[in-house]
């Protein structure tokens, strides 16, 4: 088996500069070939051999749950692309400005054929420095895209004052303190900051967030979207933690957009690392604790109307 094809999801509200970023990726002299899945044909100004039009068909899985959705068109397109393996190195999926990134991301975990051949690399969100604050007030889609992102390109910074820029970044941080934020003009950014991030790889969760474990307790406020992080200065009992995290993501799944965590189990030389999208969890032991390193445990949730008190108390009760 060859390596799984990395897939980058490109989101952003209308007019933020998604197409600019996409064209930049495609024209940069990186020597790589991309298959591009777009929602609106004709937007790409340059000639790319493999451009596929998608219809953004969001399908509910047949389990009666509103958050368990996949992109049916994406499953079909990826199936077709795999017949041309070797013709491209990576895939970029551009969503419409109004799209929720979750069904795209979930497709990579809920569909076996897709997860056997492709891996979600990162969700990259392009945001308009001038208009984002307004959109966060009136467009829930824009908020979802920020909350979901691994990388945020804060674009069009030439159109705002430094004070306004700090203000909008603070708003982003209030929703998603864990994404990497880049300030750009014309989406001018080294491609390496956007592609091949491995944001969904468990073994990269520590690398991606160097401050992750050292950071103090986070408490930000957006009206309805927030991040909740809880730390335990020690180990957790897997017999308590596993049922707790399972139950929490099952019950609160529709409200939890993303979650991540690194926890220590007693007598386990490795960290237990997990990440999730709505109800889907992916977890494994990963990377040994260094000799003498303090065993600490931390979980992070980004979502809507999260009951911070309940999450905090629930996690703290898992302490070993």
């Amino acid at each position, binding site marked *: *088996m060859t390596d799984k094809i990395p897939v980058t999801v490109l989101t952003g509200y209308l007019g933020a500069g998604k197409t600019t970023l996409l064209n930049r990726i495609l024209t940069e002299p990186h020597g790589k070939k991309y298959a591009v899945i777009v929602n609106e*044909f004709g937007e790409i100004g340059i000639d790319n*051999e493999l451009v*596929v*039009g998608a*219809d953004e*068909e969001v*399908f*509910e*899985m*047949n*389990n*009666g*749950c509103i958050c368990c959705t*996949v992109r*049916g*068109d994406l*499953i*079909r*397109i990826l*199936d*077709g692309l*795999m*017949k*041309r*393996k070797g*013709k491209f190195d990576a895939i970029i999926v551009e969503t419409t400005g109004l799209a929720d990134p979750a069904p795209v991301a979930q497709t990579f*975990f*809920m*569909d*076996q*054929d897709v*997860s056997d051949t492709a891996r979600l690399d990162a969700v990259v969100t392009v945001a308009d420095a001038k208009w984002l604050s307004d959109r966060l007030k009136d467009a829930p889609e824009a908020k979802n895209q920020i909350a979901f992102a691994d990388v945020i390109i804060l674009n069009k910074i030439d159109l705002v004052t430094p004070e306004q820029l700090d203000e909008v970044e603070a708003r982003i941080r209030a929703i998603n303190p864990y994404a990497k934020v880049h300030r750009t003009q014309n989406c001018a950014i080294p491609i390496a900051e956007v592609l091949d991030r491995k944001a969904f790889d468990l073994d990269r969760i520590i690398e991606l967030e160097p401050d992750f474990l050292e950071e103090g307790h986070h408490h930000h406020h957006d009206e309805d979207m927030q991040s909740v992080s809880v730390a335990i200065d020690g180990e957790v009992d*897997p017999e308590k933690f*596993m*049922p707790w*995290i*399972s*139950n929490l*993501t*099952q019950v609160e799944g529709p409200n939890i957009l993303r979650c991540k965590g690194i926890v220590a189990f007693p007598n386990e030389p490795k960290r*237990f690392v997990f990440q999730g999208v709505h*109800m*889907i*969890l*992916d*977890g*494994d032991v990963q990377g040994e604790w260094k000799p003498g390193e303090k065993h600490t445990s931390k979980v992070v949730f980004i979502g809507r109307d999260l009951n911070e008190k309940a999450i905090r108390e629930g996690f703290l009760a898992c302490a070993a």
Partner: protein
Amino acid sequence: MIRKAYPGAQEVLLHDLALPFIPATMLWRTPPEGIASMSTGTAPSLTQSIAPVAAGAHVTAIGWLKGTAAFGLGDGGVLLAKDGETHRLEAHPDAGILVGASDGERFVTGGDDGRVAVTGPDGSTRTLAEAKGAWIDSLALSAGGAFAYASGKRVFARDDKGREKMLEVPSTARGLAFAPKGYRLAISHYNGATLWFPNVEAKPEVLDWKGSHLDVTWSPDARFVVTSMQENALHGWRLIPDKGHMRMSGYPSKTRSFSWSHDGKWLATSGAEAAIIWPFESKEGPMGKAPRECGVRPAKVSRVAFHPNTLVLAVAYEDGCILLIRLADASELLVRAAVAGSGVTAMAWDKGGKRLAFGCEDGQAGILTLP
């Protein structure tokens, strides 16, 4: 769904399937381990009767044009093979073939160039239809010379006289299948299937069932329409006498290959570590009956193809192995041993059942001639 299992994970991922009422539920179970070892190791072999064909690219479809095997390829080519000679045609230049079908006279292919092309045994190839900017990944041929293809939600049917009709279905058309008799098309899509008489003005008949339906097939007696689903199950509708639902579940992965036995009594399916063969001989279909499981091996079945006139099933696997299995006694013959990275992606018998052509993901292919 979870990539690395850990305690408690099951509950999160496989939260109870809250399915609507199911009149007939048929669950089958994989037999205990150990049975797998009976296969292939002991099977007598036909491997010496294979003529290899170097297809050179992912084989997406195979058709037989009398004595010529046509291999539709992921790189856009069609390779014609006859008596050890091959001839390659650029049916979809600089593109890829996503789907293909044959009626014995012509090999029709759909590509990611938005074209439907037709290739004849003489090596001629031409465009049959074109849909700009779309992928053609489903098409069907009727015995009467008609063909149909889909581009997104739009389904086009062209009869033997060249009259084309279009129908728009509620979501992307995934599978197409003509009824065994008459000019009628089944179209599978999200939340069900649609039955359409292209040359009749009447409203198409809708077969409802929640979920994403992939491929569709019509039983040879036209009594049943069966779809494969995203949720690793088959769904069936009994058209006569009523609209009874059938739910055939228990598969560990999606079914992407169906084959009816020549007498119409059995439907063989892929998607499990054995060919799952449902009994359709009674007018209730497989209601309340367990399927046969043949060729249990530690690899998933990727393609199935019933012999055109005997109860022998060709079963191909994701690990490249191919077996012939006689239904009467489940005896097996090895056609191809497993080959790493060479999962079987297409397989077809010729009309007389003398030869079986197969093609694989890595571009290997071959033709078995029965001794």
